[in-house]
């Protein structure tokens, strides 16, 4: 997942387990592509399953999660030296929970319909492993600008994967996208796609494609080596 540790070229003191230094764009791009929280790290699958039955839900959930991720990562990175190691997880969760509550209340005030559709899954962002994972693995060990880049990348990666699943499920399950009918009146919606089993089926198909791609790359690497 991570490249072998490169020698520290920063003016920062050494922090055990810190991510290797690299350009900012790489920190951000990692979350979207080769270190995608959903497709590669397979984190945050519970909210993914739960809210991916309509694209509007996915967009709202993605934005809310990204907001929490960016806010908490930035704050954790700024105060990383003041937060004693023994209580860091408590403080991380405290910071994350605060941002989640802010996001939840804001959604309820600004878009009540979507907030109702997301139900308990916005408050549950608190326990989304992507956010605590990034706080512990990245934000707590790097300078704020790197934490910000990483959070934006991870948030974008999560949102993109979530929206792709949402679009697929809503299109087949309701024949619509963002509530606009796409497939016409003659299309009989596959009800199972908007129900929980549809989430598992969709994710299974995605992982099948990912696995097929990985094994194809491995075969090609072997062929080159041979």
């Amino acid at each position, binding site marked *: 997942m991570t490249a072998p540790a490169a020698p520290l070229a920063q003016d920062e003191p050494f922090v055990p387990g810190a991510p290797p230094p690299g350009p900012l764009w790489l920190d951000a791009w990692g979350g979207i592509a080769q270190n995608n929280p959903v497709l590669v790290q397979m984190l945050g699958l519970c909210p993914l399953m739960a809210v991916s039955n309509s694209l509007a839900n996915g967009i709202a959930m993605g934005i809310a999660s990204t907001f929490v991720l960016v806010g908490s990562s930035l704050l954790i990175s700024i105060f990383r*030296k*003041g937060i004693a190691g023994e209580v860091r997880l408590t403080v991380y969760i405290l*910071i994350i929970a605060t941002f989640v509550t*802010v996001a939840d209340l804001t959604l309820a005030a600004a878009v009540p319909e979507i907030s109702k559709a997301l139900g308990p899954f916005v408050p549950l962002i608190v326990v989304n492993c992507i956010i605590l994972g990034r706080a512990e693995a990245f934000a707590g060990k790097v300078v704020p600008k790197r934490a910000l880049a990483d959070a934006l990348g991870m948030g974008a990666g999560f949102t993109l994967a979530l929206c792709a699943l949402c679009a697929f499920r809503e299109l087949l*399950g309701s024949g619509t996208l963002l509530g606009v009918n796409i497939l016409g009146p003659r299309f009989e919606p596959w009800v199972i796609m908007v129900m929980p089993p549809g989430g598992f089926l969709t994710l299974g198909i995605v992982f099948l494609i990912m696995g097929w791609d990985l094994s194809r790359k491995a075969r090609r690497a072997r062929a080159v080596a041979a």
Partner: protein
Amino acid sequence: MTGTHQHGAPATEASSTSTPAWRLLATLALGGGFAGALVANVYERTLPAIQRAADAKVAGAVGEVLGAPARLDTLYLVGAALSRKPPAGVELRAVTKAFIGFNAQGARIGVAVEAAEPGFADDVRLMIGFDPATSALIGYSVLAQKETPGLGDKIEKDTSFAGRFRGKVVPVKGTKNSTLDASTVQTITGATISSRAVIQIINNAVALWQQRLTAFEKEGGK
């Protein structure tokens, strides 16, 4: 978001393996204090908008089930009796209410009441409009439901089902066949439980509110 930026445990020394207890306590206390203050602040700021949305939803449902009344009277449930005066010292949103709708000529269209009972998943909450004089339904509108998408949620999304209740005389019965009977309603295929829940909520609510309204009118309608 900006509110927490001032919170600062001293950033002078890096965390070591043995941090004194007072620093741990201070970190948690500072963090907790600022988090609490921020949440309280955002809660206060968003509360009016959240309540406006809830009120608008109820108002919209009342207008829908009474067919856009020209004037609305509100009755409040105080103890077991209805009153035109709201009870003193209680948050009005928490009081059970009935809305009486009148048309432009001042004639009563009907009464809208809220009722909730378990459906297939969680409570189904309806706004029900009916005419107390004839026990005939005007319509219902779903305020909250978590029924199965694509099947049970047709009680909300399939307007033809809600339309089948129009003019039916309570108590209503469900049937699987299409019907023209004055008190039977065709249920939704694949959503027997959800259909039955709607019918039961309507029957119970109308029976209960008929009693309350009769008692209210006997008392002179004050």
